[in-house]
Each structure stands twice: as C-alpha cells, then as structure tokens.
C-alpha cells in the first residue's frame, strides 16, 4: 500500500496539482485567479511528462561527456518529453498572453474582473 503511493509519487503529485488547478478554475470568482489555476493545471501536465522521462538509477542529462559512453541508453534520461514540454511551455505562455490581453479588454470595458459581477453586467448586453 505504502509502496503503491511511494512508488508512484510523481503521478500523485501530478494529480494533486491538476486538482488544485481545477479547483482554482472552477471555484475562484476572480478571473485572474482562474488564470492561475489554469497555469497550475498546465504545469502539472508538464511535470507529468518530465517525470516519465526519468529512468531512475544513474540516468542523467544527455550530454556527451568523457565518462559517459554513448552506447548505453540507460545512462541518459529520455530527452523527447523534455523537448515536447518546451513546446508545451511555450504554448502555455502564449495562452497566458492571450488570456491577459482578454482580461485587460474586460477590465477596460467593465471595470471588474469578478465573474459574478461580469455575468450580471453582460446579461443586459
């Protein structure tokens, strides 16, 4: 049982972060806090990918070095998920950028970033 938790701790962390992110998105009224929740959600996924790239044991960063032979893949962590996550981070940043410009537009038009107030104000539009 303990083994089950400890052995998969990276996945549990991912799940925890995901839930925190979802909580933020669903239950926070301030739009900026929703954004933070979204960001946390995206981060959890990034951590998931990074965690599956590791191989345990002696595996390390794939850099050509004198004491690390090139013919043993067990000595290098999988670089592919890391590269994928670079892309995902960029996507996340772009999303944040778009979201913030939207928030600015909303602020300029409605002077509030509270979801409930916005719902009331936009009812009439």
């Amino acid at each position, binding site marked *: 049982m303990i083994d089950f938790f400890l052995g998969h701790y990276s996945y549990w962390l991912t799940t925890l972060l*995901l839930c925190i992110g*979802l909580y933020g*998105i669903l239950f926070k009224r301030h*739009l900026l806090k*929703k954004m933070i929740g*979204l960001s946390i*959600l*995206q981060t959890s*996924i990034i951590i*998931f*990918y990074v965690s*599956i790239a590791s191989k345990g044991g002696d595996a390390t960063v794939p850099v050509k070095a004198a004491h690390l032979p090139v013919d043993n893949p067990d000595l290098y962590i999988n670089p592919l*998920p890391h590269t*994928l996550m670079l*892309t*995902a981070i960029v*996507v996340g940043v*772009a*999303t944040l950028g*778009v*979201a913030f410009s*939207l*928030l600015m*537009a*909303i602020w300029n*038009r*409605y002077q509030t970033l509270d979801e409930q107030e*916005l719902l009331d104000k*936009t009812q009439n*539009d």
Partner: protein
Amino acid sequence: MIESHLPVYIPFTFLAFSLVIPLLAIWKDDWSQPVATAGAGGAALLSLYGVLTHAGSEPLRYYFGGWPPPVGIEFVYDGLSAFMLAVVNIVTFLVLIHSRKIRLAEFASKQMAFYSVVMLMMLGFNGMILTGDLFNMFVFLEIASLSGYALIAIGGKPAPVAAFRYLIIGTVGGSLYLLGVGFLYNVTGTLNMKDVADMLPLIAAERSLVTALILMAVGIGIKSALFPMHGWLPDSYTHASSTSSALIAPIGTKVAAYVLIRILLFTFGLEQINAVVPLTTILGLLACAGILYGSIMAIAQFELKRMLAYSSVAQIGYIILGFSLGSVLGLIGALLHVLNHAVMKACLFMVAANLRLQEGHSDIRRMDDSYRLKYPGTMAAFTLAALSMIGLPPLAGFFSKWYLALAVIEKSNWLFLVVLLVSSLLNAVYFFRILEKVYLKNPKIQETGAPPITPRQEPPASMLWPTLILGVMLLALGLGNVPIVNFLEGAAP
C-alpha cells in the same frame, strides 16, 4: 512536384499569408481582406485539386525534414484528410468573400489583426487535419484554439468575456488531450499515430491505454462541443462577429470531430476500444443527449445566431453518433454530414450576418413578412438551408440523415433511430417558425389600404452571392451525393 508537396503547400499557404498581411497592412489596412481571401482561395483550389486527383490512391505520407517516423513528424494525406481539407478550405474561402462588407461594420479598426489571425486559425485547422503525429496535433490544436479565442474576442462588448470563458474551457480540453498523449507515450514510446496503431494489439492489456483514451476523448470532446461539454458554444457564437461565427461554427467543431475520428477509429480501432470500455455506447448516448438538448434549446431561442449555435450542438451529435457506431455506413453518414453541415451552417450564419447588416439585428421576434420583399435572395438561401437542416429531400441534409438512419438500423439501435427522427421534427419547429414569419403576412396586423412598396434591400453582392452559392450547393450535394459517398467509402479505415 506539386503532387508530392501538396500536403505542405496547403497549410503553409495560410502561414505565408498570415505573415504577409500584417506587412501589407502597415502600408494599406484595407488590403487585409482581399489578400486573406486570395490566400484562402489558393488553399481551397489546391485542396480541391488534391481531392480530385487523389481519389482512391494510396495515402501520401510527407516526412518533414526527410526524417521518417517514428523519429520525425509526418503529414498524412489520405482520402479522409483530402476530403476534410477540401470542405474546410472551400467554406473558408466563401466566408472570407462574404466578410468584405461586414468588416467595415463590425471590426473596421482591427482588420489586419482579424484577417491575420484567421489565416493562423486556418493553419491550425489544416495542420490538425493533416498531421499524423499525436503531439503535433496538440500544437496545431493550440494554434487553432488560440486564434479562435482571439477571433471571438473581436466582437461586441461582451465578446472578451465569452472569449475568456472559451479560453479556459478550451485550454483545459487541450491540456487533458496532452495528458492523454503523455499516458499513451509512456506505454508505447512513440508519438506517431500509425505506429501506435500498429503497436496497440501487442500491448492491449495495459490499463494506461484506457486512461489515455478517455483523457484524449474528453479533451477533444470539449473542443467539438460534445454534450455535456458544449457550454462554451452558444455564448461564443452569439457575441462574436458574424464572420468568426461562420468560421468557427461549421469548421472548428467539425475539425475536432475529425480528430476524434482519427484517434478513435484509425489509431485505436473501435473494436479494441469496445473490448475494454464501452465507448461506443457512451459516445452514442452522449451524442443523443446532445442532439435532443441542442434541438430543444434551439426552439427556446429568440435570437437567430444563438439558435444556430444550439442547433450546431445538435448537429455535432449526429456526426459523433454516426462514427461511434463503428460501421462503414455510420462513418459515411458522419462524414457526409460534416460536409453538409459545414455548408448549411455557413450559409445560415451568412444569412444571419446579412440580416444583421441590413436590419441591425437578428432577433427572430422582430422578423416579419417584409423580409420576403426586402431580401428575396437571402431568404431563398435561408429556405434551402432550413429545409436541408430539417432533412427534406432532395436537399443534402436528407441524405446524410438517410445514411445515418441506415447505419443505426443496421446496428439495430432503435433508441438512436427514434432520436434521429424526433430531432428532425424538432428542427422543423424552429425553422418553420421563421419561415412562417417571413413568408406569410401576419394576420394580426390590420391592413389599411395598400401595403407600402418595400424596395429590395439585399446586402451587397459580395455578401449575397456566397450565401446563394452555398444554398444552391445544398441541392447539388443532395442530388449528387453518390460520387461523394463512393469517395468516402474508400476513405474508411
């Protein structure tokens, strides 16, 4: 030369034009729309050429940088992607022609941004259709989505709020998809769709597959407005500019449905899925719920664009119902409906745009029979599209519903058959309501002497002609559906 590079020319036309437009706009803002339309036209032509020359041949696999999969990323140009590209690009072309006059009314100061972002969004959609790599799909998905959020924000006053809501929901969807891909990669070690498909029988017992499948399905399901994840759709369509609605409604959700088809049918294979998770049944039931919910909610709407948005939720249900059956007939019905619905909905949103431009509103309660005299062409197109949506022969809508009905009967799925038929009648309710208002004189209005001569006030030609062309296309697609069906039969896995 063109042949072998076709899969690349089509999406990258859009990329090129999206970069060209801001440069040109520094010089002359007004040129954004013609340039964008030209770009879309070029892509549409290439797609059409591709469909006509491709039919029946082997899928064309384009390896980027010469790296073969699973090391490199590939674009797959087979019957299904050729078909989708043609549908998406041709409809876009017509919608962009239509946007010529709207742009001055709805977003005159932001033309450059609008058209550039439209080009990016089309790049995203085209990429989604073509790619054969799971992560690459995510990238293009996000490109399309982000552009979509921006487009929706260019609209009325509440548009940014609707766009923000869409952003949150859409990004969650994309993230869930990404997580699903992560699980899949963990088990298979590859990101290439075909590779995964080949490998799946060997690792069928892995539980991660189930997780991956569900996460990916839910993620894409959010994007395609599958019930109950459709909540972002009505608000987004209502407040956005008419052109954005006409682009995202018929095309965006369809491309997402196409992605579902690729993942579920081509990569995973429905029989394998059903052995583990009764996904077919779940998807089918959700689709039915969406069909009924969308149709009923549409009846309750009094604003035309919102009504069309809920109607779209219902129509997506048809498509998902179709391919979730797993039979060739079902897939044909679903894909034919993708084509038909893209044309119908684009036509309907164009009609709404025409009315908004000329009348200043698209409120159904305020429509009256003067429309018949003022907008004969627009209302004729509306009638054609409405009758097609209801499913009356010989228009296109009848035939896609016919194949769906046959597929459902073939699987002895009587609940689905009833839902299919009942929804046709529900569609009739909310469309005939408008037809009645427009074509029949309201008896409550007393006639005092001769009615005033109402002159024709049709919208300008650049708006009227695309609407009419799409309307008439429905008749042609209906009567000429056999060649299309034969083509689609070859596209099935």
